């Protein structure tokens, strides 16, 4: 663990902004809310945030992204991959979002080999931060994601006048090379541990059982129609809970032509399984026509389906869906708890 004075840390960040070929982005405030966005100066960082609007997932898997560009003019016929490979230094990622990115890495890179994701991800740097504030909607502690020992290149914890920095990778240590860091003392190491532990008790929400029990709970609760209906009845099928989630990764692919048939591109766009047409096919069949089937699918996918496939619970408890659902029917902790009670009644 390294220690760096706060002003030195700011200088270091500013040096990256000035010199590193990668764009520097971080947790900041846009006037109405916390977001990850470009920063021009370390002063814009808000490492005390509680919850950002979207997770840094958007830097590797953007909301909209060109995949292929085509030109069907006779002499220039081409259909070629054409995605951005821009990598970034991302400052201020909360542990639950680090966990979410680790899961996406497993899926996009290791399991499925998605090149547009890998190229952006591989040279990017993840700088985590120990949570200082906790959103009233978050239940990360109960999901075991309020702290993490992996998934970051650097992890920053704010102490009095300094930052304690844990190094998670060579990429991370490389970035610190020229900074005037010193080794952390035993007291500082303890202070960091205390902070991490203290955060866990700040959560107002939580699932009332171990996340390990989620896959089997969902399997058992699949037919607990009363519970699912209770939430689905109020659901607007707006897809918000999907697109704000750090672990959701469904997409659509559309063709965007440049007003001619000859030249254009395919573009993928975040999609949501709550949206009505998500599983609809030509000829009028819709495999998840009922609102409740779609509403359940998201919660099944988070707690059971993806676990069955990749071994991770795909809800990290950030609370974004809870916060953003205008109908207030998206909160996984509430729904899972209710299911738990219903199944164990």
């Amino acid at each position, binding site marked *: 663990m390294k220690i760096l004075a706060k002003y030195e840390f700011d200088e270091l960040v500013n040096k990256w902004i000035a010199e590193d070929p990668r764009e520097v982005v971080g947790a900041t405030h846009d006037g*109405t*809310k916390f*977001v990850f966005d470009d920063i021009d100066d370390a002063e814009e960082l808000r490492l005390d945030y509680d919850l950002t*609007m*979207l997770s840094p997932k958007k830097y590797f898997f953007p*909301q*909209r992204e060109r995949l292929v560009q085509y030109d*069907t003019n006779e002499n220039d016929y081409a259909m070629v991959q054409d995605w951005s490979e821009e990598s970034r230094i991302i400052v201020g990622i909360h542990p639950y979002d680090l966990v979410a990115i680790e899961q996406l890495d497993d899926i996009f890179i290791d399991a499925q080999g998605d090149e547009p994701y890998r190229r952006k991800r591989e040279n990017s740097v993840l700088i985590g931060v120990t949570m200082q504030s906790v959103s009233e909607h978050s239940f990360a502690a109960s999901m075991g994601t309020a702290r993490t020992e992996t998934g970051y290149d650097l992890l920053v914890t704010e102490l009095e006048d300094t930052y304690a920095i844990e190094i998670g990778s060579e990429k991370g240590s490389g970035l610190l090379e020229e900074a005037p860091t010193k080794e952390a003392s035993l007291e500082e190491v303890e202070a960091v541990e205390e902070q991490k532990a203290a955060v866990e008790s700040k959560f107002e929400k939580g699932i009332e059982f171990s996340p390990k029990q989620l896959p089997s709970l969902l399997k058992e609760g699949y037919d607990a129609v009363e519970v699912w209906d209770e939430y689905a*009845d*109020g*659901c*607007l*099928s*707006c*897809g*918000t809970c999907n*697109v*704000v989630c750090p672990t959701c990764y469904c997409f659509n692919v559309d063709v965007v*032509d440049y*007003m*001619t*048939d000859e030249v254009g591109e395919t573009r993928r*766009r*975040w999609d*949501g399984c709550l*949206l*009505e*047409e998500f599983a609809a096919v030509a000829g009028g069949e819709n495999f998840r026509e009922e*609102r409740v089937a779609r509403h359940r699918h998201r919660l099944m996918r988070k707690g059971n389906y993806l676990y069955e496939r990749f071994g991770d619970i795909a809800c990290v408890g950030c609370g974004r869906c809870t*916060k*953003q659902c*205008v*109908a207030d029917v998206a909160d996984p902790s509430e729904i899972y708890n209710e299911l738990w009670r219903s199944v164990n009644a």
Partner: protein
Amino acid sequence: MSQTKMKPRVAFFDFTGCEGDQLQIINLEEKLLKLVEIVDIVSFREATSAHSDDYQIAFVEGSISRDHDAERLEEIRSNADTLVALGSCATIGGINAVRNSQDFDTVQKRAYGDDADRIDSWEDAKPAAEVVEVEYEIPGCPIDKDEFLRVVTDLVQGREPSLPKYPVCLECKLNENTCAFLREDICLGPVTRGGCDAVCVSEGTRCWGCRGLIDNPNENAAFDVLEEHGLSVEEVTEFYNMYFGWQQTAEVEQ
């Protein structure tokens, strides 16, 4: 691929409305040049005095609210192979249909003062599809330029144009907007057809519903949300009817 290189002839017509949609088209700027590369515009009151009755695609703007409108629209229909309704008024009755749910006399007095008796206006302002057959609709007040271009390109290339089925919230979230409900405002985004890139919310206001309802809105849930944010039943209805009035009435009648 087989392509007809003949440029289709298109014409624009306006009825009761503010002609804001035709303005959008004039404001296409450099894309307007692209547009005229792929179609021949034979009639467009906002931009040219030339006029011809020989066209394949007719775009009609504004709602239909008088016998005379209906006759004109029928004539356009018979001239055109394809009729496209443009903007909220022509697709869902738009703001003009707000009066449908109000007392007709009061509406007339308010709009025309003492001349009210002399106006042969219908009680209802109707979308074009209530009067003639309409092949495609491009909703919005005003229309979204890119969507308009996409529909025109589709028609020229012989493809079936289609509108997004998802609500405004999707694009609103992709744009990382602060949700109106989280800044103590209200919004119709959850039940309004997307495709506008959530411009109104991106500009700091709310979604007013100008693109009409999505196919299967959860209206009870939407009403609950609005009421929970402090609107009275009357206010909810009024907000809802501003653009959805026609669709609402049509639904009740079905």
